[in-house]
C-alpha cells in the first residue's frame, strides 16, 4: 500500500510515445480516492491518452512505448506481473459514443461477469441480482426492468450510456474512466449522466476527460489542465477556475486558445 491511502492513482514521470511522436511528457499527479477528477485541455493535449494509460488500453492501438510508473492502490500497473485482464476489471472505461454490445440489456450488464467467471460458476439468481443492482445504481431499473431482453442498441442514447456505466459495476471496479461521456448526448442526457456521476462518487473514483470547460467546472471536484502532453496544473476545480496558478491555464479558461 502506498503512503497516501486516499490516492487511487499516483502517476510518476509518465512518458508515452506513439511510434516517434511523444504524446505525454513527464506527467506526475495524484488522483484522490472517491472524487471526480476532470482532465481538460485543448485537442491533442494528451488527456485521452493519459486516461487510457490508467487501464493500459492504449497498448491495443499500434506501437506505444510507455515509461514511468502509474500506481493504482499502491501497485504499479506497468509491473511485468500485472494481468491486463484483472486490471481492466478494476478500471472500467466509458466512451464518447455509447457502445453497448449488440446483445440484450441483460447480457450487456452481465457481460463482465461472464467474461471473468467460469461458465458454471454463475447461477441465474446471482446474475439476476447483479443486473438489478447495477441498473438500480444507474437509475435505469425502473425504466428497463420489463425490457431486459430487448436489444441494447435500440435504447435511447442516454439510456445506452447509462447502460455502458452499469456494465462496469458488477465487476466492482475501483476506478471508472470516462472519455467525453456526454459529447453524444443532449442537454437532458448530459444532466442525467452528471447526476449519475455524483451519485457514484465516493464508492468509485471517477476520472473524466471533457472538452467542455463548463462541465468540468460544475461536475468535478478536482481538475487537471494539460497542454501539449504536459500536465500544467492540478488543483481543486474551484481554485483552478477562480485563481489559476499558471498563466497558460488562465489563458485557456478565458478562451484565448483551444
Amino acid at each position, binding site marked *: 500500500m502506498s503512503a497516501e491511502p486516499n490516492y487511487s492513482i499516483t502517476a510518476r514521470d509518465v512518458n508515452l510515445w506513439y511510434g516517434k511522436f511523444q504524446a505525454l511528457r513527464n506527467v506526475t499527479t495524484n488522483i484522490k480516492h472517491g472524487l471526480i477528477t476532470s482532465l481538460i485541455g485543448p485537442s491533442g493535449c494528451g488527456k485521452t491518452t493519459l486516461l487510457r494509460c490508467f487501464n493500459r488500453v492504449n497498448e491495443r492501438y499500434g506501437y506505444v512505448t510507455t515509461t514511468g510508473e502509474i500506481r493504482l492502490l499502491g501497485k504499479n500497473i506497468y509491473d511485468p506481473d500485472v494481468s491486463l485482464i484483472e486490471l*481492466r476489471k478494476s478500471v472500467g472505461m466509458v466512451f464518447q459514443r455509447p457502445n453497448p454490445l449488440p446483445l440484450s440489456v441483460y447480457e450487456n450488464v452481465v457481460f463482465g461477469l461472464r467474461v471473468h467467471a467460469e461458465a458454471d460458476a454463475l447461477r441465474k439468481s446471482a446474475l439476476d441480482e447483479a443486473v438489478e443492482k447495477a441498473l438500480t445504481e444507474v437509475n435505469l431499473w425502473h425504466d428497463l426492468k420489463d425490457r431486459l431482453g430487448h436489444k441494447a442498441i*435500440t435504447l435511447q442514447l442516454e439510456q445506452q450510456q447509462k447502460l455502458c456505466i452499469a456494465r462496469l459495476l458488477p465487476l466492482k471496479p475501483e476506478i471508472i474512466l470516462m472519455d467525453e461521456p456526454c459529447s453524444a448526448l443532449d442537454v437532458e442526457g448530459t444532466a442525467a449522466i452528471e447526476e449519475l456521476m455524483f451519485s457514484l462518487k465516493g464508492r468509485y473514483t471517477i476520472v473524466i476527460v471533457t472538452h467542455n470547460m463548463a462541465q468540468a467546472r460544475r461536475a468535478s471536484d478536482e481538475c487537471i489542465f494539460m497542454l501539449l502532453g504536459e500536465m500544467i496544473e492540478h488543483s481543486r476545480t474551484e481554485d483552478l477556475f477562480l485563481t489559476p496558478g499558471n498563466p497558460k491555464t488562465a489563458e485557456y479558461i478565458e478562451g484565448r486558445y483551444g
Partner: protein
Amino acid sequence: MNSAAGHVLFVETPAVRRKLRQEALAKWVFCAMAAAMVVPLLLIVGYLVVRAAPSLNLEFLLEVPKRGMTEGGIWPALIGTIYLVFISLAVSAPIGILAAIYLNEYARDNWFNRVINLAVINLAGVPSIVHALFGLGAFVYAAKFGYSIISASLTLAIMTLPVIIASTREALASVPQSFREACWNVGATRWQTIKSVVLPNSISGILTGVILQVSRAAGETAPVMFTGVVFFKSIERGDLFPYYLNEQCMALSMHLYTISTQVPGVKESIPYATAVVLLALVVMVNAAAISLRVYLRSRQKW
C-alpha cells in the same frame, strides 16, 4: 419582378438549354451501356435453355450417360461435382475463416504478417491452370493421393482459400471497432471478444463469402481435370454415394467439355442441357447465399 434589362428572371437561356441537351445525351449513353450488360446474359441463358429444352427433365439429371455418352443423363457428373465442391469447401472454409480471424483480430503490422498478406493476395491471382499443376505435383504425386477425388478437392480448396480469407476479413472488418473496445475494457480476452461479439455479428458476411466460392469450385475445369476427374465412370443411376474418396470421378464442367468436343454423335440438346444444369446450380447456390445473408442481416441491428 423583371430585371433592369427587361429580361424575365430565372428562365432558361440558350446556354442552359445546351447544357440540358448534353445532360440528356450523357444520361442516355450511360444508361445504354448499363443495359448492354443485360443483353448478353439474357441471350446466353435464353439460347441455352431453348437448345436444351428437349433434354431438360428430371430423368436427364438422374440417368447415367448411355451409348458411349451420346445419350442418357448426367448423374455421375452432377454427383461428382457436388462431391468435389463439398469436400473442397469443408477443407478451405475452416482454414480460411480461422486464418482470416488471426489476420484481422490478432495480427500486428510486422514483417511476418505482411508476408502472409502478400501470399494471400498473390495466391488469389494465380491462374487456375497453375493451381492444377500444383495440385498434380503436390497431391497426386508428392502426397501419393493419386488421381482421386481427394486430390481434386484439395486442389480446389487451395484455389478457393485466398478468396475466402479475403471475404472473411472484410466481414470481420465491418464489425464496429467500438464493440471490441467495449469488450476489452471489461477485461475480455481477444478470444472472448471474437466468440461473443465479433463472430455473431459477421457470420452472415463470412457465410456469404464461403458460399460464393461454391460457384467457383463447381465451374473450374482445369484443376480437377489434372488431378482426379475422368471422362467416364460407370455408376448406378441416382446412386448418392457412388465414389470412394480415393477414386476418380466425373464432374459437370469436364463432362461438358468432353461431350461438346471429344465424343462424336452426341444428341444435340445434351451439351446445352448440361450447361443449363451447371448454370442453374451456380445460380441456385448464389441465391441461397443472398437469402441467407438477408435473413441474418435482418436479425442484427446497429
